[in-house]
């Protein structure tokens, strides 16, 4: 086993291409993605307000939209056509129209309507603009309503019970700022571990498969030895990432270190053995990149987290479970971001353990078969 371990390490270190993928890619990709997603929240989205009313009441509503935090009034065009042009140029992501007579209607206790023209082509931007506009309009509406009630002679308690009989109090758990990076980065890092292993291990294996005539014991030692190399390499890599990138960008780290380490240990073994089994498909060092690189994004989706499982077919989700990454993404987020216990993620743990065993067995059988084929060739 020690021989297989040392041999694999030597093979990695003597191949620049394999080193790039197995030793450095994880850190490089994680850093670059974190830079893209690190800003976390979408704030101050530019919108335009077409104020046809020009009254103190309409100005007050605009002030609310201006002070955000979700939106910023970038433009106050004279007409809707002008605003639409700004929208086509991507200068703004929403238009609020305050019609003529807005204040007059409110003062005569009639309901006034404002128009909200929104862009559904980017759902995250849509949500920010929608939420801000609705909140501001409701807040101002409530003030107006309270004004009517005061005029009717109602007391404070009655006013509150009518303006807001039932209030919703929202609490965000585990990722208080609702940061985007904190949402996607845990999934991404887990998928990167598996994908770089699948490509890198196959690349190394093409050069390794020269021996023949090994017994079952030899095959077991070989597969276990190789997996151990990657447990060490990826263990170190992951620790570095959690200690640097995760700290710099402030991604959630609420987990128990030992639990996280156990999950990741099982996951790396499962991925490394799957990678060894798959490596028998390749005979040239470049084919693993050609054949496997594309699958990262589909695999991320199949985990059913960043794109929720409720949004796609159940059978696709079930197929996804044969990949170690699917359970690991789920387990890692719950353990490390939410602070769940190993008991909470037992389904995922059992699934990954089964996969680790199955794929190790498969890798051993294929290793044995490869050595038999080698003999018969001679």
């Amino acid at each position: 086993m020690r021989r297989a371990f040392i041999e694999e390490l030597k093979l990695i270190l003597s191949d620049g291409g394999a080193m790039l993928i197995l030793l450095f890619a994880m850190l490089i990709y994680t850093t670059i993605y974190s830079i893209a997603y690190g800003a976390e929240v979408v704030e101050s989205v530019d919108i335009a307000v077409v104020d046809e009313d020009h009254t103190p009441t309409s100005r007050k509503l605009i002030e609310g939209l201006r002070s955000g935090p979700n939106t910023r009034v970038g433009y106050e065009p004279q007409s809707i056509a002008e605003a639409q042009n700004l929208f086509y140029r991507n200068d703004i992501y929403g238009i609020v129209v305050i019609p003529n007579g807005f204040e007059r209607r409110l003062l005569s206790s009639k309901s006034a309507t404002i128009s909200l023209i929104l862009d559904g082509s980017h759902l995250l931007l849509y949500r920010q603009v929608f939420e801000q506009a609705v909140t501001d309009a409701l807040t101002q509406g409530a003030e107006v309503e309270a004004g009517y009630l005061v005029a009717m002679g109602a007391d404070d308690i009655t006013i509150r019970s009518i303006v807001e009989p039932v209030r919703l109090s929202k609490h965000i758990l585990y990722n208080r700022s609702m940061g985007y990076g904190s949402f996607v980065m845990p999934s991404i890092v887990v998928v990167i571990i598996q994908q770089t292993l699948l490509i890198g291990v196959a690349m190394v294996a093409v050069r390794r498969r020269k021996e023949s005539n090994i017994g079952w014991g030899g095959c077991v030692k070989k597969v276990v030895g190789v997996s151990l190399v990657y447990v060490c390499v990826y263990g170190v890599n992951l620790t570095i990432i959690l200690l640097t990138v995760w700290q710099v960008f402030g991604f959630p780290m609420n987990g128990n270190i030992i639990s996280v380490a156990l999950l990741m240990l099982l996951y790396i073994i499962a991925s490394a053995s799957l990678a060894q089994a798959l490596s028998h498909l390749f005979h040239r060092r470049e084919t693993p990149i050609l054949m496997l690189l594309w699958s990262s994004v589909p695999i991320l989706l199949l985990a059913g987290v960043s794109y929720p499982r409720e949004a796609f077919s159940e059978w696709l989700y079930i197929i996804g479970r044969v990949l170690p990454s699917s359970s690991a993404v789920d387990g890692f987020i719950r353990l490390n971001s939410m602070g769940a216990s190993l008991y909470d993620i037992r389904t995922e743990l059992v699934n990954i353990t089964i996969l680790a065993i199955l794929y190790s067995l498969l890798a051993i059988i294929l290793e044995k078969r490869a050595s038999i084929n080698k003999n018969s060739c001679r």
Partner: protein
Amino acid sequence: MLPQGIISVFKRELHSIISDKAYLAVAVLLPLLMILFFGVMFYRGTIEELPIAVVDRDHSVMSRKLQSMIDATKGAKIAYQPHSMAEAEALMLGGDVVAILYIDDGFEEDIYRGVSTMVECYLLGTNLSTSGVVERDVQQTVETFSAGIALSKLQSMGVGYSQAMADIMPISIDTHIISNPYLNYGYYLAPIFMIMGMVIFTVLSSVYAIGRELRYATAREWLLSARNSLLCGVIGKLLPITLSMFLLSELIYVILFVVMGMECEGSLLYLSVATLILILSYQAVAIAIISVTANMRLGLSLGGGYSVMAFTFSGITFPTIAMFGVARVVSKLFPLTYFSEIFIGQAMRGTPLYIETTKLLFMMLFWVLVPLSWRRLHRMVESEKYWGRE
């Protein structure tokens, strides 16, 4: 008519694609598979019936009414009714629910006594897609529920129905969504995912097409077949890939606009032209990558990484305008960024064409990479010292 050199290299390349399984896979089969995968993945396009837990400590007619209103929304489904918050949190940590609603004892009593009361909602901050949907539906439901109570209260005070309505909702909002009006996640994500898939394979297969001549030391043969013109050689070689990817992109549009039922608000012809320019831009990048690395495997690693990353920086998931300054600059280095704006403009918004032209020109800027890397490419093809590298 095309020069003879181009035609003979084109034929030679078709032969290679058919006889080299890996080549056939990256130039035709895998991109096809990936496009179909995304089609199936995003076909439904809506996030519905997300499981939530309700802890109802009040057990009243009012609390049950609120529950059934929430259960009736599209986004949320009451999957569990645990007795305590501790139980509910265990469900959340176990991954069974994405939100918890807490209705305290005295909810109904407060309403009848005319005291403002509260419902608590705990959302899973680690998943923005699910919490966004649940938050919106729960918020709207509670507002409606609340308005209903206010309405009956005002009526009991002797205010007429229509006046009471105006009093409760003095400012009403009339929402028009001008692109993607049904807020379909499939329409929003599927196009750029599919195009990204096509882009990855454009880069991989183009790097592979040139790289394999160096790797297997057949560069001289290639040049010979091109009548010793490198220009004819490169055109004849990359043309089959251009055609294959262009056909795949048209298939993408058939899937989006016919099968998935998306409406194209602008010009489909313009979109097709932009797609062709996008493919050529990525092929120019591929030529630069293989020239700089002079090594197929390294070229594939870099090219693959570059094209996968384009997706992140294109701003379709996390908007470019919200990124850090440095990331906003990096996002300009990918043709896909310009293309996704053109796509949204044409497919979803019907943006006037003259506005899109600058973006088209920006994509074409990447073509400059070809003349820039030409001398080095020339040297590699001629000199044996670049051949046979693994």
